[in-house]
């Protein structure tokens, strides 16, 4: 068919990416109504939201910093999804990655920076990989469903963290002073993630995350192993004829997904303002629900590693902006949590229209190519 028609159809299909945006706006509309009911000014609130996310260099770097764990988790999810596995163990995998990286730094604090910094990141990667491999192996060898094992392992991860931070890893200064704040000592300076923008919270974690997204894209689309993972996702029955291969793909997918979450955990610790591992006794207190929100960011990005990059930046903007909204309009933070949930539901639900649109476009394209053919 004519080039222009084809281009137009392609553009139409791409406009499907607008649906998640519309969904977010719809959720925010409901949020505006809730603000009104609470006696707050929605316009002022959303103005604060935009200001909080994009209002200045500091705000932009906060947004980008917030996006980093979302991006890493999201990219991991795109791997898992292609293998038809849902990884809801992200929270625990982030914690394990953080624990492994912290452990390494506490073990060899005097290692030179060029060894220690990559070392802690790799340790984080390994920690998360382990916490993804366990559910994977349990599924492959014992038929233990991964949703059960990941939920249980999330719980276990928190208790390991609590045990270490209020026990062997507690800052000796805290023990001596008796205040017993559950945190480690200030971690080695040479492992501080270098800042991209001075005096901000944006560190090289962003670069690492983007590079990871690209690597995963290359892996999934251009390498045989990755192709196999995608094939499993598309047609598990056909792949099953190849033998136990399917289960191994699942293990690999969960391990890789977990590894990326673990890397996020390492970045959260060594890029944090405090440069320590601090806990309040919960997983969410450390991860900020990145383990869950990252899944949404992946969906927002069309379950494509590269698409997850802008998606996580936008989602990060939403989260950062929402916190600013809370501060300016002084509504309970609970509203922000509820709003977060609404956005997730709306975005996920809008996928159907995007799918229908691209299906129609496919149909129109094939019809234009061959009007006689029966679709």
């Amino acid at each position, binding site marked *: 068919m004519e080039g222009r028609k084809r281009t137009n159809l392609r553009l139409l299909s791409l406009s499907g990416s607008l649906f998640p945006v519309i969904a977010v706006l719809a959720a925010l509309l409901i949020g505006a109504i809730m603000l009104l009911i609470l006696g707050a000014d929605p316009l002022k609130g959303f103005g604060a939201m935009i200001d909080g996310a994009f209002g200045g260099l500091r705000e932009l770097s906060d947004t980008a910093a917030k996006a980093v764990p979302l991006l890493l988790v999201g990219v991991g999810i795109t791997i898992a999804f292609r293998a038809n596995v849902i990884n809801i163990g992200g929270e625990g995998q982030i914690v394990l990655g953080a624990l492994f990286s912290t452990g390494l730094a506490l073990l060899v604090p005097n290692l030179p920076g060029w060894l220690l910094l990559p070392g802690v990141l790799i340790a984080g990667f390994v920690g998360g990989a382990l916490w993804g491999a366990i559910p994977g192996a349990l599924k492959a060898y014992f038929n233990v469903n991964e949703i059960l094992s990941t939920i249980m392992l999330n719980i276990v991860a928190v208790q390991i963290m609590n045990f270490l931070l209020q026990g062997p890893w507690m800052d000796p200064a805290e023990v001596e002073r008796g*205040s017993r704040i559950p945190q480690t000592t200030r971690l080695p300076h040479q492992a501080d993630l270098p800042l991209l923008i001075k005096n901000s919270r944006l560190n090289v974690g962003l670069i690492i995350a983007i590079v990871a997204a690209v690597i995963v894209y290359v892996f999934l689309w251009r390498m045989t192993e990755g192709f196999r993972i995608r094939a499993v996702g598309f047609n598990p029955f056909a792949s099953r004829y190849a033998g136990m291969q399917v289960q191994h793909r699942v293990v690999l997918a969960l391990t890789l997904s977990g590894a990326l979450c673990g890397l996020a955990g390492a970045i959260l610790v060594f890029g944090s303002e*405090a440069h320590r591992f601090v806990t309040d006794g919960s997983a969410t207190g*450390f991860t900020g629900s990145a383990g869950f929100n990252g899944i949404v960011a992946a969906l927002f990005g069309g379950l494509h590693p590269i698409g997850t990059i802008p998606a996580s930046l936008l989602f990060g903007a939403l989260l950062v902006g929402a916190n600013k909204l809370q501060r300016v309009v002084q509504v*309970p933070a609970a509203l922000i949590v509820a709003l977060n949930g609404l956005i997730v539901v709306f975005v996920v639900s809008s996928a159907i229209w995007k799918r229908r649109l691209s299906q129609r476009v496919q149909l129109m394209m094939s019809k234009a190519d061959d009007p006689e053919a029966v679709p």
Partner: protein
Amino acid sequence: MRRLTVTGILVLVFALVAAACGGGGTTTTAAPGTTTPPAEPLKVAMVAPSAVNDLAFSQSMYDALLAVQEEMGGESAMQIAYSDNLFVVDDAAAAIRDYANEGYDLVIAHGSQFGSSLQEIAPDYPDTAFAWGTAGDTFGLSNVFAYEAASEEGGYVEGVMAAALSTSGVLGVIGPIEVGDAARYVNGFVAGATAQNPAIDVKVNYTGSFSDVALAATAANTEIAAGADVLTGTAQMVTGAVGVAKDDNIPWFGTQADQTQLAPSIVVASQVYHWEVVIKQIIDLIDQGTMGGESFVINLANGGEAIAYNPDYSLPDDVKQLAEDTAKGISDGSINPPRPGS
């Protein structure tokens, strides 16, 4: 030339008027503990890890701020903004930074896990005063105040009372994780109970969670099964334990806030935190130009901690006298509850 003269005269007039407004009025030496309201409202922001109505940690500070605000003359004297439920440390750090950026005079980081972030943030805002609790370390920074509660003191007094009230000789304690303020209170309670009755058996159960209410209830049940006839506990999940105590008619001792309303029939007393004592001192120092560098403790002696008795619980007079004597002893130093680090 004329324009300059006119401008000059205007400036002079303006300066004279300003001097007349600012410098006038009698100067009084502020009595310790009271504050003179500043001309412009003092902007105070609070960042808390749990809800401001949690009837525990966060509420104690929020209530204190409200009390100080009222004493100072309301919203025209002091404005309060807060962000609660910020248990994600990074989000809290962003909030602290943002409040400082927005020009708040005093930013209170009410959570020990926020300290390490504050250490990095405070130097960037030398004109903002920060307060951090519960802890005693000001990091050597000139714009950071630190505050903590000597919760072992009230814990000790309540431990004494509990041991005196117990007929079975077994007490029960429900805690979250053995850290911070929780650990201090529990250690104080155990010490006080043992001092009152060396043969007392105190069962301590750290559930492993600050939020799991059902688990706290289960823990309380196990302690009653082990023979405990008086219970206490700390952290926001403790409401579950209070519920169990209420069902089984077991006396309860509370901390951090007055927990009488949770179970008016069995709550004996609660250690209440009156952070106003510290807040007022901090505001005074800020008015005088000191933005930090001092740490404060609330304890029984300075009124920052107090035992709030439940008027509906008929506490035997001798037990109450015992408690008041113990409190006095702690205040004057004759009785020594276990101090952190010792």
